């Protein structure tokens, strides 16, 4: 009967204690995102080359717009692909 005395959760208790997301540009004081630096922009695209949403990266709206603009510019000058497989 000892098994019944254990407290059981429907979901893992760790799930609710997620670390709060933050905007890395605000935190580290980056004011300008360079579209000529594809290695840095790789952090904000998935392995298909798609731009990651804010809910995953945690960027503020202001910097998400700038990241998106920089990625689109980098694609235009062929530093990043428009479509890819296994980019990472």
């Amino acid at each position: 009967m000892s098994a019944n005395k254990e407290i059981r959760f429907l979901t893992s208790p760790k799930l609710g204690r997620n670390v709060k997301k933050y905007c890395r540009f605000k935190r580290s004081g980056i004011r300008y995102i360079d579209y000529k630096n594809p290695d840095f922009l790789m952090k904000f695209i998935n392995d298909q080359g798609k731009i990651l949403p804010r809910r995953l990266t945690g960027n503020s709206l202001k910097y998400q717009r700038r990241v998106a603009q920089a990625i689109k510019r980098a694609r235009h000058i062929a530093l990043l692909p428009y479509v890819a497989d296994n980019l990472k």
Partner: protein
Amino acid sequence: MLKSYECVLIFTPVLTKEEVEKVVGDYQELIKAQGGEIVHTDFWGIKQLAYPIRKKTTGFYLVIEYSAPAESTAKLEVYYKRDERILRFLTTQLDKFAVEYNERKRKGLIGKGVKHKHGQSGAVSSSLIDDDDFDSLIPDDLQNMEG
């Protein structure tokens, strides 16, 4: 009033070294002829493209930072479009943060290994150029500035 711009040009890889040197000089002259002042010229050399453009998989990259009157961009882009050696071009207007960033980058204050590069700032721009022959492409005033 002059505004700050940055222009990335991708040239076709079939050019010889002499042609590339000439082309770089030509475009610097062209910008000056439109009333612009060149702040910095950065020649990346031949580089792999992320996807083929006009069936070419490599290209010569040239980045020119300059300040010019606002009307000049449309005129310059006509020249870029007419030039068959240019695969792609991108002109962007720089805000004050971008200008500051580019200055810091030129001094080697941005990027990996920042602490090591700080003492020998002269090596930063020349390391971007693969071949020794392209050293002559860096304008003289620029070399003095970094020295």
